[in-house]
C-alpha cells in the first residue's frame, strides 16, 4: 500500500518535471507554473505539493537534465575516437534538446544557482572529452591552448544558437548547420598541418 502511494507520488513528480521541460523549452523559464500544471494534467496545487517553490521545480528539472545530458555526452564521447565524430555527436545530442538548451544558455543569469552549476558541469563533461581528442590537432601542436580550442567550438555553437532568428528563424538550427559548423572547426584546427 505504502509502496503504491510512494510510486504514485514519484510518477506525478516525474509527470510535472516532464511537463515543465516541454513548457520551458517552448516558452522559456518565465512561463507560469499554472501552465505547467495544465500541461501535466494536474491541479496547480499539486505542483506545489511536490515542489515548495518555482525555484525548486527549476532546480530539480535542471539537475535531472544535467545528469541525463552529461551521461549522454559521456556515452557518445566514449565511442567517438576522432574529432569529427565527437563534434557531430556533441551537436546531435544538443539538437535533441535545442529549444530547452537555448533557453538555458540565454536565461541562466536569471535562474537559481543550480542553473549555473548544471551548465558548468555539462561544460566540464564536454571539455574533458574534447581535451582528449583536441590535443592531437595541428592547432594544439602549434601551441593553441586546450581551453581556447574548446571555447572556440563552444563560442561558435552558442553564437549560432543565440542568434537563431538570423540563421534559422523557422526551423531547428543545429540539424541545419551541423555540417558547416563541423567542417569549419575541423579546418581551423587542422591549419598548419602538412597537406597529405
Amino acid at each position: 500500500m505504502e509502496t503504491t502511494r510512494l510510486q504514485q507520488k514519484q510518477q506525478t513528480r516525474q509527470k510535472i518535471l516532464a511537463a515543465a521541460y516541454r513548457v520551458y523549452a517552448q516558452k522559456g523559464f518565465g512561463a507560469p507554473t499554472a501552465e505547467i500544471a495544465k500541461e501535466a494534467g494536474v491541479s496547480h496545487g499539486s505542483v506545489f505539493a511536490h515542489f515548495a517553490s518555482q525555484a525548486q521545480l527549476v532546480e530539480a528539472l535542471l539537475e535531472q537534465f544535467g545528469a541525463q545530458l552529461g551521461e549522454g555526452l559521456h556515452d557518445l564521447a566514449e565511442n567517438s575516437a576522432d574529432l569529427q565524430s565527437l563534434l557531430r555527436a556533441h551537436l546531435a545530442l544538443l539538437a535533441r534538446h535545442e529549444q530547452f538548451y537555448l533557453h538555458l544558455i540565454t536565461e541562466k543569469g536569471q535562474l537559481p544557482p543550480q542553473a549555473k552549476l548544471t551548465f558548468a558541469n555539462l561544460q566540464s563533461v564536454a571539455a574533458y572529452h574534447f581535451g582528449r581528442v583536441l590535443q592531437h590537432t595541428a592547432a594544439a601542436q602549434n601551441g593553441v591552448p586546450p581551453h581556447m580550442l574548446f571555447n572556440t567550438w563552444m563560442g561558435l555553437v552558442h553564437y549560432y544558437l543565440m542568434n537563431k532568428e538570423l540563421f534559422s528563424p523557422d526551423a531547428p538550427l543545429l540539424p541545419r548547420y551541423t555540417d558547416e559548423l563541423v567542417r569549419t572547426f575541423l579546418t581551423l584546427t587542422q591549419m598548419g598541418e602538412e597537406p597529405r
Partner: protein
Amino acid sequence: MKTCIACGMPMQKPADFAGGDVTKDYCVYCARPDGTMQSFAEKRAGMILFLQKTQGVEEAAAAEIAEASMRKLPAWQAQFTKGAADGDAE
C-alpha cells in the same frame, strides 16, 4: 551503473575504476598513485586546475564551481556538514 563518489563520473568499464578494481566506489582520476582516494583538499585543487586548463575558468569562479559540485557528491558530505569547506579548506 556506478558513478564515482568523489567526482560524479560514470564508471562503465574496469579502466574507469581506481586501479581497475570494479569494487571501488571512486574512479581512476580520484585515486592517488598508491590507489587510495584523494583528500578533499587534493580533489578541490584538482577540479580547480581542470576547470582552468580545459575551459580557461578564472580561479575564484573555478573554486566556486568545484565546491558547488563537491557539495552534491557522497564522498564530501561530511566536509560540508562540519563546515570544513568554508574559506580555503586544506
